């Protein structure tokens, strides 16, 4: 062996060793940095780098302070599709999937277009383009929930109260008196008018050019709608909810799942129940959702109303609508009885359920166990070493591990199977209730054609209203019965019963309505 061979072999070994040492060093430093970062993450939950205030409807500056929550919020533009709801560029049409909805909503804008809902960050844009808004004159009250509208209410309210309105004054404080005044002032104005007002309010980012009334951009619900910009504490901002929950506290509904209401009642029910001072943090984790995910009246005949003065059950809400009359033109006259729309096929004045998630959840086992909306729809998660509440608000079924398994120590598949069972059962009951409602429409149409008078039809119309209200209550609620499965089944059973009673009533009126219809009469004549 020559010396040069030896040398090149040693050189080779040395190169290999150097490479190994380099790679190991690389790995060790990478681990070191990773450990360092994780330790840092655990140390500082957040760093306030910009100030946000009461006009910061644009979520971007909040995102600088809370990057993780903001990133999650932005993810609400791409929620996955579940068996019952979810996300698409153009979400599937419910009217095509469930043709009976078209007949249920005949005479109401939902019969024109009704699609699956998309995530929070889409909600304003989706509302602006839906044919319900572009083809039908809608009320500005719709923006109570679809837009980050509180600073606009405040601005209009301050103008009405004769207070000085500048961007700085608007940003100063929540000013509940002005917010309430503004809410009452715009509730009955048109959608377009209120939308234009929205853009005249500063949003904390867009600066106005001289002479331009456009001071900000319109945003869908964002950080400021649930959080106090000074303290980041959860808070309720929506006037509809503030008025509604006060009515509920003053009712005698037991609401065992809302302990602060019981406490407030025990202390003598003095003044107004204010969730922002009286409610527990855990209750607020549901109340902020209940600001919008509820039943309400939202059109231009009266101010936006949450019907909670009797309680939260389906018949409690119905009782409030039954006893409501629209404000009358003449001061000394009672107004017209409340209704949402005239059902076009039968001519009956009926109620439209919106999306009573808060009310149905209130009847369920999870509410009773103290589980809030956020516990399942915004579960806590660890990002690095930091614990945050996920702001990717979505179906728990898309996130079973974090949403359910914190409490339920069974496999993901078993949890999914249990939920599927409840939702399929509810869905099957909805189909039966829908079949009953449609047959009821046919029976009433036939009875009218056979000459039944409005007076004869009155008890039948009452049954029709009750049947439609109950079916719609569960069909339009966003959980397919999961939020309270027994309650959903009870409500759908009542719906089926009322539909069938109405059908029986029609038969009693006119004998066999099919035999008495003009068509049958004509056939009878022809055969004679």
């Amino acid at each position, binding site marked *: 062996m020559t010396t040069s061979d030896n040398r090149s072999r040693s050189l080779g070994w040395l190169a290999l060793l150097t490479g190994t040492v380099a790679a190991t060093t690389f790995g060790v430093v990478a*681990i070191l940095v990773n450990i360092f970062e994780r330790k840092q993450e655990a140390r500082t939950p957040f760093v306030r780098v910009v100030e946000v205030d009461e006009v910061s409807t644009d979520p971007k500056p909040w995102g600088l302070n809370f990057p993780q929550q903001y990133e999650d919020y932005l993810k609400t533009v791409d929620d996955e599709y579940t068996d019952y709801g979810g996300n698409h560029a153009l979400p599937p049409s419910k009217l095509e999937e469930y043709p009976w909805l078209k007949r249920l909503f005949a005479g109401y804008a939902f019969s024109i277009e009704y699609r699956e809902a998309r995530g929070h960050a889409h909600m304003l844009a989706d509302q602006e383009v839906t044919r319900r808004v572009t083809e039908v004159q809608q009320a500005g009250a719709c923006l109570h929930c679809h837009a980050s509208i509180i600073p606009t209410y405040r601005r209009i309210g301050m103008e009405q109260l004769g207070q000085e309105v500048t961007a700085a004054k608007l940003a100063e404080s929540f000013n509940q008196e002005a917010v309430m005044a503004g809410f009452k002032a715009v509730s009955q104005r048109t959608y377009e008018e209120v939308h234009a007002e929205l853009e005249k309010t500063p949003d904390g980012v867009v600066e106005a050019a001289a002479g331009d009334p456009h001071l900000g951009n319109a945003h869908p619900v964002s950080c400021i709608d649930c959080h106090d910009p000074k303290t980041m504490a959860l808070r309720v901002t929506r006037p509809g909810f503030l008025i509604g929950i006060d009515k509920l506290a003053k009712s005698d509904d037991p609401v065992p799942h809302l302990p602060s209401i019981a406490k407030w009642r025990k202390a003598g029910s003095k003044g107004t129940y204010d969730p922002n001072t009286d409610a527990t943090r855990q209750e607020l984790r549901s109340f902020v959702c209940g600001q919008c995910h509820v039943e309400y009246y939202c059109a231009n005949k009266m101010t936006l109303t949450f019907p909670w003065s009797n309680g939260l059950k389906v018949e409690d809400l119905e009782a409030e609508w039954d006893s409501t009359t629209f404000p009358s033109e003449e001061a000394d006259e009672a107004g017209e009885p409340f209704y949402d729309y005239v059902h076009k096929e039968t001519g009956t004045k009926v109620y439209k359920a919106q999306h009573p998630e808060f009310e149905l959840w209130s009847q369920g086992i999870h509410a009773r166990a103290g589980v809030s909306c956020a516990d399942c729809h915004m579960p806590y998660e660890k990002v690095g070493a930091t614990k945050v509440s996920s702001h990717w608000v979505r179906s728990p079924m898309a996130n079973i591990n974090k949403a359910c398994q914190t409490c339920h120590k069974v496999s993901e598949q078993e949890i999914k199977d249990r939920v599927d069972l409840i939702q399929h059962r509810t869905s099957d009951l909805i189909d039966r209730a829908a079949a009953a409602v449609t047959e009821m429409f046919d029976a009433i149409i036939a009875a009218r054609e056979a000459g039944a008078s409005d007076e004869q039809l009155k008890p039948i119309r009452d049954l029709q209203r009750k049947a439609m209200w109950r079916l719609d209550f569960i069909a339009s609620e966003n959980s397919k019965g999961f939020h309270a499965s027994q309650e959903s089944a009870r409500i759908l059973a009542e719906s089926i019963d009322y539909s069938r009673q109405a059908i029986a009533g029609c038969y009693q009126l006119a004998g066999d309505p099919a035999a008495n219809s003009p068509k049958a009469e004509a056939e009878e004549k022809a055969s004679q």
Partner: protein
Amino acid sequence: MRFGKVAMTFFVCLGLLAGVGTFTFGYGKGASYLSNNPETCINCHVMQDHMDSWQQSSHHHVAVCNDCHLPHDFVGKWVTKADNGFFHSLAFTMGGYKDPIQIKPRNKRVTQSTCISCHKDFVHPLLPATAGHDMLSCAHCHADVGHAGR
């Protein structure tokens, strides 16, 4: 001495690696993994809840994490410690693990064996008559003894 210089550089690098390595080991509290201290398990924060619930539990006077989660024989203990140590660090560094975390079947068997190891005199009549036969998991009903409220 041409190789002398190269070799010197190499040994300097080796020294650097040893230094950085030792520092990282110390900074990452590496030595604690050889101990019995429950605080070790919350080095990476993931088990904080488990630590908290153990402190509330009926067993915290008599058993630490290792007493229930590592086999009681020498070889089994260190093999399990190495196995869990490696996969836990990997999971925490790379992310993407289940959270709430879930016990693996292997570790479930370990826990069952440690229950019996301490309580064998008491549960003797409940043990399977022939080796290898199934029995109920103790923690299925007694979930609170090690972690209260979980």
